[in-house]
């Protein structure tokens, strides 16, 4: 099989080699539609690449470390990042490279091109992968085109695509990817058109922006909209946008530029051009045998067709008010939402820091001000319902705004790995720091208190006997301040039964060991990263880093803000319980299962998870099933836990290693393990069910396994 095919060479049997997009473009070109010329790097080239580089087996191992359906989306994110890194670091097999390089060089020379994904066998009339794989525009020169082809291949394994394939129950390892390399058109006005409007099937829809249509597609430039009568193309309505920006070709890729003031008041399309775009409606619908959406651009007066695909049944780009993102049947909008562009992330940061967090704080304060004990039973019941709604609303915000903002960290990972190509795909984490966060402040004060005990044996003995330190001493003052400031955080949202006693127990345990320092990162890593860029691009890299740091800080703090709201609901429920209005809720303890008389005993020898921080640790397990268990942790024990919440991280420096049920490189357990250099395995679904406290275990942070020595 050929590793590339010109549009004009592609015939009906090549669909599985060139993918839906590549096939459609070649068909459209053959039928005389105004499609810019190009070629398709075939799925065979992709298969050759992954076979020759050994990626085939490594991808399978990443994806089947445990069943895909058992992986949290964060674990899938991590697997996607690691797989992308494998592609970026792989050496192009020389014979394959030579063939593609020659074709690309002869066809395009130094002319700018677009490199687009075209996955065979995936788009169809009832499902769409649109937007889930990568495309790159304004790519110049063979070197860069070759790099982008590899990135397009890698995007077959993007987090979004994996999540969507899991949803559709498609077997990921059977997938392949072709790449369309196509002449780039420097469009002055561009857009998207739907031959059938999603809102009214008697109408069509055109959306248009000034500049390239990348701004429209990624949501950074708002489009003007025209609703048309499908029968005759008559304009039914025109809704102008607030026109401020346009996407324009940069040195490479695209850049967002301010719109020329003369164009601000001028719609991108006049009636004649609307009619020209409408002229493609019927021929495209006839060609596809049903409704189509297509991307187009005007180069001067000449209309060019960029891509075209069938409109999928029941497709929705936005959720209805009141729908919960995590409960939708078609979660593609949410998967798409996970990948925010840099500009969107910057906007999201402004919104989170300027509106959402202050809003949550205000809400928690307002709820805290309600004197629950003064409410009648009926009022209290209504208050609980209202608080439950408020909690749901903020939880939705958490999902739709805070979680996608975590992508700021991954964006840095991607930029860093592409520029630096480090051996460890998580090296970029060293550029992030939790200094200045509330959680870090709490850890610092605890260490300071432990240090006082470490240096004062008399005080230690007094505390051991359950006595307080000297009245008015600095230790007692600091401890009191600590309890007032962080008391509510020491046991999560529920009241901590142990209170002062629990904190003293932890402090004495910390004091019994030498101070544990955070891992020092090699100096100059930030500059080593930034020095890979120059001029405007260096500035952008700096902004990406700043954004990632904000995202990293928020990861600690968003849970705390949400926990405060949830805490207010809990408070009202407790008041109701106190009055006997609601039965006390009983949760079945995790891991307790009926035992019976099967005659055999099963014990785990090795459990599998994700390697979250390298290293080996052997010690006694301390399984955390209740907040009080946290205070029983002894130095060197292995913390086995469902999920380390930010408010629990203060005990981590005591642990010899961490095993966490919740998976992902950016869960708190993994982050803090990395900071302290502790071996850590996350994403072990049966951790608490199958590892009892006291068992001797080994955490293998290199391979992501936990060995139980019984």
């Amino acid at each position: 099989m050929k590793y590339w095919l010109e549009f004009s060479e592609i015939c009906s049997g090549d669909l599985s080699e060139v993918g839906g997009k590549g096939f459609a473009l070649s068909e459209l070109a053959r039928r005389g539609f105004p499609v810019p010329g190009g070629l398709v790097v075939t799925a065979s080239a992709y298969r050759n690449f992954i076979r020759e580089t050994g990626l085939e087996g490594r991808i399978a191992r990443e994806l089947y470390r445990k069943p895909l359906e058992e992986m949290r989306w964060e674990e899938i994110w991590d697997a996607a990042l690691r797989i992308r890194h494998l592609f970026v670091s792989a050496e192009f097999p020389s014979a394959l490279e030579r063939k593609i390089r020659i074709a690309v060089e002869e066809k395009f020379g130094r002319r700018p091109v677009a490199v687009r994904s075209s996955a065979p066998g995936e788009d169809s009339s009832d499902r769409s992968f649109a937007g889930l794989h990568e495309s790159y525009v304004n790519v110049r020169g063979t070197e860069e085109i070759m790099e982008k082809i590899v990135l397009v291949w890698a995007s077959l394994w993007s987090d979004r695509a994996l999540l969507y394939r899991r949803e559709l129950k498609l077997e990921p390892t059977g997938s392949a990817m072709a790449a369309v390399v196509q002449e780039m058109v420097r469009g002055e006005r561009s857009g998207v058109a739907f031959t059938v409007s999603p809102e009214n099937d008697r109408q069509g829809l055109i959306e248009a922006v000034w500049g390239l249509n990348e701004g429209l597609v990624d949501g950074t430039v708002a489009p003007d909209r025209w609703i048309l009568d499908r029968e005759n193309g008559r304009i039914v309505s025109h809704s102008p946008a607030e026109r401020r920006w346009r996407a324009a070709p940069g040195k490479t890729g695209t850049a967002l530029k301010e719109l020329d003031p003369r164009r601000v008041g001028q719609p991108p399309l006049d009636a004649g051009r609307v009619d020209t775009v409408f002229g493609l409606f019927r021929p495209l619908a006839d060609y596809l045998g049903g409704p189509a959406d297509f991307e187009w651009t005007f180069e001067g007066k000449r209309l060019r067709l960029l891509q075209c695909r069938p409109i999928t049944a029941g497709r929705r780009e936005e959720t209805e008010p009141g729908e919960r993102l995590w409960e939708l049947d078609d979660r593609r909008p949410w998967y798409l939402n996970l990948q925010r562009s840099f500009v969107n992330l910057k906007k999201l940061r402004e919104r989170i820091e300027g509106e959402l967090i202050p809003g949550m704080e205000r809400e928690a304060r307002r709820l805290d001000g309600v004197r629950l004990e003064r409410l009648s039973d009926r009022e209290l019941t209504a208050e609980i319902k209202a608080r439950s709604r408020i909690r749901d609303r903020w939880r939705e915000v958490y999902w739709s705004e805070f979680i996608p903002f975590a992508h700021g960290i991954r964006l840095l990972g991607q930029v860093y790995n592409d520029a630096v190509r480090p051996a460890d795909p998580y090296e970029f984490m060293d550029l992030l720091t939790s200094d200045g966060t509330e959680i870090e402040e709490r850890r610092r004060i605890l260490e300071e208190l432990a240090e006082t005990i470490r240096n004062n044996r008399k005080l230690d003995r007094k505390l051991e006997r359950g006595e307080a330190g000297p009245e008015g001493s600095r230790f007692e003052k600091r401890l009191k301040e600590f309890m007032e400031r962080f008391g509510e955080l020491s046991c999560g949202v529920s009241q901590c039964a142990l209170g002062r006693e629990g904190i003293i127990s932890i402090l004495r345990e910390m004091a019994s060991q030498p101070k544990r320092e955070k891992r020092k990162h090699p100096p100059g890593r930030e500059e080593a990263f930034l020095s890979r860029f120059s001029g405007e691009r260096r500035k952008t890299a700096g902004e990406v880093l700043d954004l990632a740091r904000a995202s990293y800080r928020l990861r600690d703090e968003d849970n705390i803000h949400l926990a405060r709201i949830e805490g207010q609901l809990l408070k009202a429920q407790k008041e109701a319980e106190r009055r006997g209005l609601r039965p006390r809720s009983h949760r079945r303890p995790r891991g307790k299962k009926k035992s019976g008389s099967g005659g055999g005993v099963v014990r785990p020898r090795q459990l599998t998870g994700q390697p979250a921080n390298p290293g080996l640790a052997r010690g006694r397990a301390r399984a955390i099933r209740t907040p009080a268990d946290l205070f029983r942790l002894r130095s060197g024990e292995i913390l086995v836990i469902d999920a380390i919440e930010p408010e629990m991280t203060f005990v981590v420096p005591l642990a010899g290693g961490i095993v966490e049920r919740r998976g992902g490189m950016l869960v708190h357990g993994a982050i803090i393990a990395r900071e302290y250099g502790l071996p850590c395995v996350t994403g072990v679904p049966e951790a608490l069910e199958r590892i009892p406290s006291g068992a001797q275990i080994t955490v293998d942070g290199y391979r992501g396994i936990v060995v139980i020595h019984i």
Partner: protein
Amino acid sequence: MTGAEQEVRRAVRKLLASQPLAVLCSAGGEQPYANLVAYAPSPDLKSLLFVTGRFTRKYDNLQDNRKAALLVDTRTNRPADFVSAEAVTAVGEVKEVSGRGREVFLRNFLKRHPALDDFARAPSTALFRFRVKDYVLVRTFQKVDILTL
């Protein structure tokens, strides 16, 4: 029976049912030895039957040391094996079956391997019953469970 035990038993049963041959590991003196044998598991998984010639190295080894292991796996010798192959190792002791019970056990063995009838009934062939102490089940490359019977 716990959910975990049920699940592991199911997986072991399925694996044993899927493969007619196993690798038998025996030790004579200090030298371990491995070879392929046809086997048949009992419905309760507590024993595995296999036959061997009396003039073989494995027969000598098993006379010398009754402790043995049997490995059954689903590898297909493709890259996907690293994630999808499953293996179970049975650890226990063997005993040659003789006397009145032999015919019953032999029939059970031959139900699974009717083609071995001549071989199994030959006077120079011994029928062994492998009593399983533990099954060590390995899945997804490195997830390991031990089922003790």
